[in-house]
């Protein structure tokens, strides 16, 4: 059964959420990818580096998620996880994410548009998440395009 997607979410901002990065989580993430770069894995290498500690891989901010906000977005759109595909993803990083740091994430829905392709009708949900540090400086930005199979 095709579904209707609610475009009323365009422009909606979800409640900001705070993430404190755990050292072990960075290493777990790097291991899951199979990327054992010593700048992620070795505290000694991190301490001797220009960053003074280990850093996270470039895509680590994908772990910054708020379950309640994700569920609210799906409800707002009128869909569920079984229809989702990841369309595009972008990270812009001013500096690497580091352990022990606390970040504030703010997500906004920039656009929702529909297209019909080879595999049928799909909606594209464009979101942007801004990541700031405790000093309110921007550390990075994530842009996500989620595809909903209608």
């Amino acid at each position, binding site marked *: 059964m095709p579904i209707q997607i609610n475009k009323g979410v365009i422009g909606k901002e979800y409640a900001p959420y705070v993430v404190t990065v755990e050292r072990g989580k960075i290493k*777990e*993430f790097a291991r899951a990818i199979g990327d054992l*770069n010593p700048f992620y894995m070795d505290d000694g290498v991190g301490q001797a580096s220009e960053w003074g500690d280990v850093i996270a891989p*470039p*895509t680590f901010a*994908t772990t910054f*998620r708020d379950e309640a906000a994700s569920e609210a977005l799906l409800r707002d759109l009128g869909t569920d996880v079984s229809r989702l595909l990841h369309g*595009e993803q972008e990270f812009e990083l001013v500096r690497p994410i580091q352990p022990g740091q606390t970040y504030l994430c703010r997500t906004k829905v920039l656009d929702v548009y529909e297209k019909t392709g080879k595999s049928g009708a799909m909606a594209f949900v464009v979101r942007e998440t801004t990541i700031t540090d405790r000093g309110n400086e921007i550390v990075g930005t994530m842009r996500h395009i989620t595809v909903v199979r209608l």
Partner: protein
Amino acid sequence: MKYARVYVEDVKVGDELPPLVKGPLQQIQLTRYAGASGDFNPIHQDAEFAKAAGMGGVFAHGMLSMGFVAQAVTDWAGAGRVRKIGVRFAALVRLNDTVTCRGRVVGTSQKDGVSLVELDIWAENQKGEKVVTGKATVDLASRLA
């Protein structure tokens, strides 16, 4: 040499990154990535769920493939050098697929005294089909600095 430092003077347009081969992909890696990333969509874990969703079986998180491509970039440019990385997920990656990540230098520029290198990046499966395509920008140190 892995994790060698690349300097901007060593780089020219057309240079290719050393390919990074990942896989064959096993279910355990998808389970591990779910735990590490927090993306527990059962479509990556549960074959019955994925079939009922019309996907024919489980497939890898797009973000896992993006992690592979990002690794190809950082293996070459060094950790912490990525300023921007963006990809489109062009095709699904299935269990037992082998993913080869590649990149090519398409431009160099200077901004605020920093040397930036633009890359085309992509990943292909064992049939040579592109599964990820995108672009990255890295900042590289200068030998003159």
